């Protein structure tokens, strides 16, 4: 297995910086697939009076089959959530991974600074880290929201088992939580993720980083300046980064 270089040159001579490993990219594909299937088979159950619901049930061959597909996708999502958290826990404990996707107090200061910039009380935007507070919000949203969905979903899948361990009221409470958390997750995705990764004028039509694994150096400079300075203390046009991997391609000489 070969390691991907930290910095490489794109086909059009652009300097690219590694951002997401193959595992993370695969996880994103898996989340897309699970999310789409779960929404398509779950929302017709929530909004069952809607004619769209009947259309989906007809398409999938009935209510029971729709529920089976929903549960199967839920199990895949749950396994993934479990492995993701386990992987990060082990990685962090053994010191091989940093938890730079989790929020820290600095993120609150960044958010406050950024709002000040938006409102005009600050004259420059904050210098954001590798993952900014908007991205971290979405990440903890999917982790915690995902956990709510996994736990409540398992309660609804095995109600009789759960009743042996917890009060019976947990079952209807899980139903309310599962249904509402799903609505929240879809709303955040449609509004926040679609804006942040697609519709924002700075991003449009889309941010391809999660698919290619690499972010163009100039984008890193604009949007994640703190991380940019860490990798290129004197700018990416001036020098190869100190952290550059051995098999990284030589940086192109740029005419100033």
């Amino acid at each position, binding site marked *: 297995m070969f390691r991907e270089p930290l910095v490489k040159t794109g086909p059009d001579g652009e300097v690219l910086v590694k951002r997401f490993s193959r595992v993370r990219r695969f996880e994103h594909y898996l989340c897309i697939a699970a999310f789409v299937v779960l929404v398509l088979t779950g929302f017709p*159950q929530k909004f*069952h009076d809607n004619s769209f*619901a*009947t259309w989906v*049930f*007809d398409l999938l*061959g*009935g*209510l*029971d*089959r729709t529920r089976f597909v929903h549960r199967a996708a839920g199990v895949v999502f749950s396994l993934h959530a479990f492995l993701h958290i386990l992987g990060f826990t082990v990685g962090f404990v053994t010191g091989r991974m940093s938890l730079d996707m989790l929020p820290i107090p600095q993120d609150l200061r960044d958010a406050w600074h950024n*709002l000040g*910039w*938006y*409102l*005009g009380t600050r004259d420059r935007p904050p210098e954001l880290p590798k993952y900014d507070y*908007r991205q971290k919000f979405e990440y903890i949203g999917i982790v915690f929201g995902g956990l709510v969905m996994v736990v409540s979903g398992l309660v*609804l899948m095995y*109600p*009789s088992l759960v*009743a*042996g361990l*917890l*009060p*019976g*009221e*947990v*079952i*209807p*409470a899980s*139903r*309310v*939580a599962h249904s*509402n*958390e799903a*609505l*929240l997750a879809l*709303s*955040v995705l449609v*509004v*926040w993720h679609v*804006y942040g990764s697609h519709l*924002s*004028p*700075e991003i449009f039509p889309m941010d391809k980083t999660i698919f290619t694994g690499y972010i163009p150096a100039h984008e890193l400079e604009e949007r994640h300046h703190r991380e940019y300075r860490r990798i290129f203390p004197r700018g990416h046009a001036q020098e190869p980064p100190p952290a550059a991997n051995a098999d990284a391609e030589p940086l192109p000489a740029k005419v100033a």
Partner: protein
Amino acid sequence: MKPAQRLLTGFAAGLVILLPAHAVLAQSDADTTQDKAAEAAAPGGDIRSEGCLECHAEDPDAKVTFGDGSSRAVLVDRKTIALSVHGGALACTDCHRDIARHPHAPVKARDARAYTLDESRTCRRCHYAYYTRVLDGIHFKVLESGNRNAPTCVDCHGAHDVQDPKGPRVEVSQRCARCHDKVYAAYAGSVHGRAMLEEANTDVPVCTDCHGAHAIANPKEPTFRTTTHQMCAKCHGDATKMAKYNLNPEVVSSYLQDFHGVSNSLYSEGATKVYKPMATCTDCHGIHDIEKFSSGDKGAIREKVLTVCRGCHEEVPATFGDAWLSHYQPTLASAPMVWSVKWAYRILIPFIMAGLVLHILLHLWRLRAHR
């Protein structure tokens, strides 16, 4: 002709046509009243039937012998016919259509039941819509399968004494009781049956309100289970009717919010085959022996609910029954956990979404300001 003239002529013509018609109508009204009086005095009514009745109402020894050798008296009572809903309206040969003149050919039926089943077809000549609905019903299917005891038109409505079916409601169930005596006994002792028999309450259902009269569904069909709640909803989903008896008007809507209710309502809309039967009203409340739940003590009710749960969810612990919130919207007192989760999201979802949208709008505003 000028328009005014035309109008006047039309009006005159109308008067000429309508006045005599009115007179005739008034006359015929008077005639019917007289007829009714005459029938009561001298039963028999229709003059067209007189020829038949000369033998069939007078000769006590008149008998018909069937193919199997059995025989039966063919005596009819003039009064019975006159007082039936067809009295004065139909003549004998309107129904007994194979007979046209006297003396008529002997009846060829195998036995009395065969004759009844055969003659029942005559009803469809006028009551065609009901006849076709009967073809969809369980009684016809049983009949078709070879059980000749299954009822046909005259078994429920009567033959020569056929009455207006809009008669007293209590009689409807009593008619069904002639065959379904055990079910009737259960119904008669239920909260519905008692109100019907003891208080002559017209709001409670009789057999046909739930089962239908002609296209009676097979209660063992899966669709019967999946549509049961709609049956009960006819009354128990009616807030005004429920208020009259101080009953919870939310029983149907709360059931339809529950997993079982959602499943059954989707199955009933045709979401394919039912693989697993889902709990419906009758599983907890009883089928014919329905009783008030509020009259029992809480412990006994929970016990009963748990028994019903265990009918499908085998060997579940006693706490499982608490998953059912008893047809009431969760409150802080009745179901604190469900209530809290519900309200947490009611606050959280708008709060988060409003914040995110605001952040996006501020971002766009900043970009615009810096262009």
